[in-house]
């Protein structure tokens, strides 16, 4: 894999994130559907936290709150001490579904954030760097309908990274990748995170992935999501999945999720 140097602009230290007593519910027809139930998490600047939980428990909803796309029904979400009330390019969300713009080429999709903020002229070179980072050099001129699902997902990742975020919210960004690409992208994610010092929140279904990548794994209960367990993964990088410490943590996590037969 090409090791592109997507240099951060220096200032970009990670963002401190606070989730204080957040509850959220959606209005379904006539009755409310509680999705998050009194969730509190504190994330240090530059920390890598993974969120694990059963499907439909409210993980994506939590990330949308952190991105500022929705407001919590109760409680506060805070970035660097200030309430998060609106989206901001310093907090970038990589959606579960890549949702690339079908009318834009890969290049133009990745350039979206720079273009929106009028930085394309001065920082356009970052686009190529980001595309190389996700291993899609040569596909700059392709349209989304010409990409595979995994490639589209990688473009979505590049589209987020190009903005040099201080908080990276990842909603199963490696979900559609084959296991080989997945492994190398995990490595890239870790080294990107280590290089840039950004804060990362990763939602995943994959217990192993959470343990390989994150310093802390938060396990949610089924909907409405409550924090069921918190595992600290105090192992140096790069990690190996057969590390006995990780195997033990994996067993614990699965037990919390109710999957230890």
């Amino acid at each position: 894999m090409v090791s592109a140097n997507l240099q951060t602009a220096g200032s970009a230290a990670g963002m401190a994130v606070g989730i204080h007593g957040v509850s959220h519910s959606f209005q379904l027809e006539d009755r409310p559907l509680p999705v998050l139930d009194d969730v509190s998490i504190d994330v240090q600047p530059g920390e890598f936290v993974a969120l694990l939980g059963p499907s439909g428990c409210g993980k994506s909803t939590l990330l949308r709150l952190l991105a500022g796309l929705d407001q919590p029904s109760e409680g506060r979400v805070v970035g660097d001490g200030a309430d998060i009330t609106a989206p901001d390019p310093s907090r970038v969300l990589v959606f579960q579904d890549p949702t690339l713009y079908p009318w834009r080429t890969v290049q133009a999709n990745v350039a979206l954030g720079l273009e929106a903020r009028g930085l394309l002229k001065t920082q356009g070179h970052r686009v190529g760097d980001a595309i190389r980072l996700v291993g899609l050099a040569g596909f700059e001129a392709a349209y989304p309908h010409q990409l595979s699902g995994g490639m589209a997902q990688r473009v979505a990742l590049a589209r987020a990274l190009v903005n040099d975020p201080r908080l990276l919210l990842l909603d199963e960004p490696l979900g559609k990748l084959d296991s080989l690409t997945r492994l190398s992208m995990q490595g890239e994610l870790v080294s990107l995170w280590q290089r840039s010092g950004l804060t990362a929140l990763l939602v995943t279904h994959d217990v192993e992935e959470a343990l390989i990548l994150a310093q802390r794994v938060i396990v949610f209960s089924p909907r409405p999501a409550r924090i069921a367990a918190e595992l600290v993964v105090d192992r140096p990088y790069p990690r190996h999945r057969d590390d006995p410490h990780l195997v033990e943590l994996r067993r614990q996590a699965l037990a919390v999720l109710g999957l230890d037969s």
Partner: protein
Amino acid sequence: MSASGITVAAPGVTPRASAPALWLGGLLAGGIWLGAAAFTAWLPDEIEVGRTQELALLAAVLGGLAVLAALTSGLFGEAGLKLRKAGPWLSVLGLALIGWEWLTAKSGTLPLPFFASPQGLLEVYLEDWPRLGESVLRSLWLLLTGYAIGAFAGFVAGVALGWSKAIGYWVHPVLRLIGPLPATAWLPIAFFVFPTSGSASTFLVALAAWFPVTVLTWSGVVGVNRNYYDIARTLGASQTFLVLKVAIPAALPQVFVGLFMGLGASFSVLVVAEMLGVKAGLGWYLQWAQGWAAYGNMYAALVVMALMCSGLTTLLFKSRDRLLAWQKGTVRW
């Protein structure tokens, strides 16, 4: 990894390495057209028409060109291959010319003045081309100004309706009440209210194009995937950016559906307006020809009108194909 790359294959034609040197279909078509020339030139006319020899000459030239193309099409590569596809059509058209010539000029089965012979049409084009040409230009001008105004207004109205609740509140009821009314219903009022019949007709053509463009642009903007906006907002997009760079491109396929419908509607309004008000253009020419029982002129004008409408539609398709090259599986015109 770095060696990866893609090439986007041109849709449709697959270039073959070497085309066979001789094009038999072309020879056949050439033969038929030469036959039509001989048929026209040597059989005596049953009815009284001029320009028979000119028609024969024209058919002979076309036949000669077809034969020439048949012998040399291998040299033209891509264009030659395209021409080959037209072979069956060329042959059938030659046969149709013979049949038409037989039914009208040579046997008189289809009598004058209601049916025109091929040389009759040719005569109109050769003798009345200044008036016909002026009519085409007048029609084109009226159509294009009216359509451009209507399409632009419809596009702006559609985007505004889809984007702003306040605008929607005021425009939506007007659209619902007035939009479905056929533009021709405004004809009497328009000719009365507007200072000139030209401006009245421009208004009517614009109105006809406005409604479908508005409705489809509107539905296109409303139907844009909400996630597209969320993505752009998290990346720091302004409202202007959301409208210009997200909503409009995402709605563009729908906008083009509206543009096609609007073009069709403005054609029919154009003809009616010219027949009833403007006293110029192809619609007027048609009516004038009918008034003088000059059916040959009428057919000639109809052919020109068909070419004009088809040409404009093709132009619209071409611009859509350019703008929406990112779409897959669209109809090819």
